């Protein structure tokens, strides 16, 4: 895991969102299409490549919670909007390696959280629950210890109070439980295979149509 080694060498304890998602992608976890840019030219190219609307996010390894710092602009519809959002975000950051992540805008009303933590007794444990702002408010979550089997993954999804969010509700398709189960299993595998990974927070995982996509992610290192 190049990203993890490099971060450790630099004495960092977190990976940036971009780096975090690269780790997830290496384990075949579906993540947003995204490009990291640090100038206007690259920004324009990224916008075209991904296709508007896009999301712009300030990206740096020392920023965990971006919303509170005004580093996110959503629903950017053209190059002009992109460039003014880019300037604003860059202006709000002050690190040496500041950059902006241009990201596809994933549409979906259902937000989940998937995570990993290391329990002192049991080792890497995978978390599943309601995502977005509800993670903190409702704490509707469940855990299983890695390695997870598929039935553990399905069980832990059924364990949360709000599990009906995964069903076909209000005209939405049922969430693809096979893919979700696979993500849960893979997150456990990351924990088992990378001792230096202390925690992972994938929040939100948005259900787009029926397919889950990791929209934001944070990997914390030991």
């Amino acid at each position, binding site marked *: 895991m190049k990203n993890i080694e490099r971060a450790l060498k630099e004495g960092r304890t977190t990976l940036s969102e971009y780096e975090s998602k690269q780790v997830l992608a290496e384990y075949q976890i579906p993540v947003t299409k995204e490009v990291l840019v640090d100038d206007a030219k690259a920004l324009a190219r990224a916008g075209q490549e991904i296709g508007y609307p896009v999301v712009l996010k300030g990206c740096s390894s020392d920023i965990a919670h971006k919303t509170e710092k005004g580093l996110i602009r959503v629903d950017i519809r053209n190059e002009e909007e992109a460039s003014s959002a880019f300037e604003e975000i860059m202006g709000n950051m002050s690190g040496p390696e500041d950059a902006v992540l241009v990201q596809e805008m994933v549409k979906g009303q259902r937000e989940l959280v998937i995570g990993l933590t290391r329990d002192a007794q049991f080792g890497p444990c995978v978390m599943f629950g309601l995502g977005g702002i509800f993670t903190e408010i409702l704490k509707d979550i469940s855990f299983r210890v890695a390695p997870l089997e598929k039935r553990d993954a399905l069980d832990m999804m059924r364990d949360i109070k709000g599990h009906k969010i995964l069903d076909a509700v209000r005209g939405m398709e049922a969430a693809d439980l096979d893919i979700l189960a696979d993500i849960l299993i893979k997150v456990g595998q990351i924990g088992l295979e990378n001792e230096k990974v202390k925690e992972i927070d994938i*929040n939100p995982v948005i259900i787009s149509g029926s397919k889950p996509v990791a929209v934001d992610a944070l990997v914390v290192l030991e």
Partner: protein
Amino acid sequence: MKHNLQTLFYPQGIAVVGASEDRGKLGYNITENLIRFGFPGEIYPVNPKHRVILGRKSYPSLDAITGPVDLVLSAVGARATVKVAEECSIPGIKALVAYAASFREVGRDGGRLEGELKETAERSGMAVLGPNTPGFINGNLPLNATFFPFKVQKGNVAIITQSGGVGGAIYRKALEENLSVGLWIGVGNRLNVDFADILLFLGQDETVDVVGIYMEATEKGEQLISAAREVTAIKPVVIYKAGRSKDADRLTLSHTGSLSGSEKVYKGLLKQAGLIYIDSVTELVSACKGLALAGKPGGERIGIITPSGGGSIVVFDLLKEQGCLLPAFAPGTENKIRDLMNNTSSVVYKNPLDLTTDGFEADLYGNVVEALAMDKNIDLILAIFPVHEYFPPPDDKLIEIRKKVGKPIIVYWIAIDLLDHEYSERRKVLESNGIPVFLLPEEAAWATRGLVNYHRNRMKGI
């Protein structure tokens, strides 16, 4: 360790160090319990100040005993208990119960003392239950090696408890429910006998069909999980994990970190290991009772029959909470029930089946239960019936169905008064024929959920 636990829980000769004739002393209560509840092996009181205790010859020390001793009950204080352990190691005694408190639970000095006790136990390879334990009961012998005057009985349920008080509440509730707890074990400070060791032992003990655990915490969680995986493949294990509110959020960078309070982690892991995770003392007893008496269901689809709306609504809510299935009856069943009910329009022919007051008629009720039991869409039955002197329940019919069809039947009596002698007896007859009877809707639902969750766990293993 396994061999030593066999000696600990199935001893042949017991010495009580600190035996006493003073009713206020632990050593009196323990010795009295051994005698009163009829321990069939030899009992050796040890106390240098007496020659006879409770009519038995008293010995000045352990090594003065001439007969074979394989279990020592230490009824003396903390410091003296460490000495008792030393003395046990000389004649090679392999099992000790240390009742005394004031060990590691009281701080550093107690911790040091417990360290000494542990060192002695490890050196001689002795299994120590406790310290700080109420002891244990093995009703199958019979043996009451606690200081509680619990009446003992044979039984196929084993309880492991981290608290004497809560364990006592479980025992009392079980007695009220005619649930036979054969083994009752207080783990105390878990010097070298922890939950995992006892669970593994109970897994291979053929007198035990169901294990119930009351746990607050253990440092050996990993061993517990691995023991649970092994034992739950053989028999159902129900766990009530208390001490949930200490769950202090840790300050970490990620949400996952701050939310991983060990309680939620524990819950997930215990379930993952195949344990039936429940939420109260009463639920523990209800689930154990259902599992101990009703037999294994072949599936998880429930049929409910009731003459009362309310009871079935409470039951229904609790079952739905865990995604239990109450399927539609097969067409043939519905027709059969319509025939039995003369197709009356006051009944909605759906599951749960509310027969209204027509259902008070015992023969009719029994025939409808039979129709339900024969339905291929139904794996277990929850039969609700009122207890009223003019409407005796169709006990014989239920027993006949239970025997003939083999599907679990759980009965909930809507009791309108305290059970009199007749109904206490009727209840015992049903229960001795594998039909657990409950007097509260929640308890009936918890028992049903216990069976459903056991079935789900068994399916996972295949």
